[in-house]
């Protein structure tokens, strides 16, 4: 296809730069306030991730999304598939919290807490320990393969793969009891699917944190695409202060920048070297910026050495940059906060008042109804009773909806263990004369003996000949 015209050319350039083969970014190690905060964040989050599944609570794993048993333990709460709504609500709360924090403080999630950042930091740390500084890494990669390079690369790969495998194992430990999983791993008796998911998640960790890194943020992250929608002129962003820095240029430490007609930026490019996404913050706000503030640390250090004021690159807001004052309280913040609080309150209330008893009524599928020898119309149901409470209960079943409806069941009492499911076949019989319609609505009421708060009512239909 022929290209012609300026528009087309610029289009092509955009495409080229969008899909340019990614060059490896070697972020330079950085020290400073924000780097310390990130290390703190990374260590505590990784700590939580790796330690959490080993913590026991009340005889079970404290946090366990037990897929094989179809129940979720979250400390003192046990959720069942019927409680899916609670998990969905938790996700909505997490999402809203992210919106709120983004509106307030920008992309702090990206810079400090996102798993992509956290594991990339861990993998970078391993890489630095094995391969050395940014410069040493670049040199090593430029060398042709030799014994030393092979040894270094193999060590790094070994550590990466081990760490990733452990990550994968821990991940599976959130979905199937990790103590059992661990003992089976030691005996090499891991199930096929368990092995598959350990390798799958391990490989994903290895690929994302070892190789994809900033490309995940740039190309794959949905949040990175829409986070700007939460931004306003009072949202914290990491920004270079061009009024102060420009015109940039190198100079001796002793030189007076005013005499040289230079701004405070000495163009040392350290801010670019430390950037994990490889951008130049001096070019303004860019969507690749994950607000990790590595450039702030790097620049503050340089400013200190030069004897200039810190904060040539800093957390600021658009309002502040234009000489105004940042407003903390603004409609956007208030609305996000109000919605968030309302949903959290609703969630807490519904968890607290949740009835830990489930009843499903399933009609016998083989027959609509049958006539008994005594000439009664009979419908058969299977009741699935789910005791989601922490203790066993005996229940009383009542049925209503049709005059003279008789309930027959084969069990003398309905007793269900804690966390147990009981399948209870019941037969309902009625005189044909008591039926007005072909299909009548009836309701089953199940009440726990000695605890009338534990009551559920479930509607069903009774079918007859009319």
């Amino acid at each position: 296809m022929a290209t012609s015209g300026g528009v087309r050319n610029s289009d092509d350039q955009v495409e080229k730069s969008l899909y340019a083969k990614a060059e490896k970014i070697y972020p330079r190690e950085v020290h400073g306030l924000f780097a310390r905060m990130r290390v703190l964040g990374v260590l505590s989050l990784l700590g939580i991730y790796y330690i959490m599944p080993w913590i026991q609570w009340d005889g079970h794993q404290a946090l366990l999304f037990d897929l094989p048993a179809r129940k979720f333990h979250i400390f003192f709460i046990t959720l069942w598939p019927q409680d899916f709504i609670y998990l969905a609500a938790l996700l909505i709360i997490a999402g809203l919290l992210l919106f709120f924090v983004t509106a307030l403080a920008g992309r702090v999630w990206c810079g400090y807490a996102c798993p992509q950042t956290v594991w990339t930091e861990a993998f970078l740390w391993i890489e630095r320990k094995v391969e050395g500084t940014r410069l040493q890494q670049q040199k090593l990669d430029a060398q042709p393969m030799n014994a030393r390079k092979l040894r270094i690369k193999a060590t790094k790969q070994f550590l990466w793969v081990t760490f990733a495998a452990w990550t994968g194992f821990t991940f599976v430990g959130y979905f199937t009891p990790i103590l059992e999983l661990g003992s089976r791993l030691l005996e090499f008796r891991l199930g096929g699917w368990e092995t598959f998911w350990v390798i799958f998640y391990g490989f994903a960790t290895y690929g994302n944190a070892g190789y994809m890194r900033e490309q995940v943020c740039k190309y794959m992250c949905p949040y990175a695409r829409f986070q700007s929608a939460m931004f306003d002129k009072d949202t914290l962003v990491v920004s270079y202060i061009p009024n102060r820095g420009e015109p940039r240029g190198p100079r001796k430490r002793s030189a007076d920048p005013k005499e040289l007609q230079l701004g405070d930026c000495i163009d040392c490019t350290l801010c670019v070297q430390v950037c994990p996404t490889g951008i130049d913050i001096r070019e303004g706000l860019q969507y690749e910026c994950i607000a990790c503030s590595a450039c702030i640390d790097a620049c503050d250090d340089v400013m200190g050495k030069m004897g200039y004021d810190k904060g040539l690159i800093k957390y600021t807001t658009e309002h502040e940059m234009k000489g105004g004052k940042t407003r903390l309280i603004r409609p956007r913040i208030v609305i996000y906060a109000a919605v968030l609080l309302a949903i959290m309150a609703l969630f807490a209330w519904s968890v607290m008042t949740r009835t830990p008893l489930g009843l499903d009524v399933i009609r016998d599928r083989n027959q609509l109804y049958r006539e008994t020898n005594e000439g009664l119309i009979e419908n058969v149901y299977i009741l699935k009773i789910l005791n989601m409470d922490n203790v066993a209960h005996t229940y009383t079943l009542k049925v209503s909806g049709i005059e003279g409806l008789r309930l027959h069941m084969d069990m003398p009492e309905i007793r269900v263990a804690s966390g147990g499911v009981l399948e209870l076949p019941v037969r309902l019989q009625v005189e044909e004369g008591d039926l007005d319609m072909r299909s009548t609505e009836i309701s089953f009421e199940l009440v726990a003996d000695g605890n009338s708060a534990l009551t559920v009512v479930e509607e069903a239909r009774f079918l007859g000949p009319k």
Partner: protein
Amino acid sequence: MAEEKVPGSQKCIAILWPSFLVAIVATGLFFSAFDPDDLYPFGNETGISRLGVYSIGFLAFWFVSAVSGVGTLYFAMTNCMRSRR
């Protein structure tokens, strides 16, 4: 033209990544409603562990949404070429 410039790896990610996310949601919704032990595909018991059924379900959802992704990409690209010609 646009099509030739997009490397295969980018296309793969564009197809596999969103469908992966969709598959997670679909698997969660589907298996909240249906217990693998109650499923009798084509009238047969599966004889597969729950974890196995979840996994197969997930992979199947992933595959199906990836196929739809391939279609989207194909139509988007051929349309793009047509409009440029």
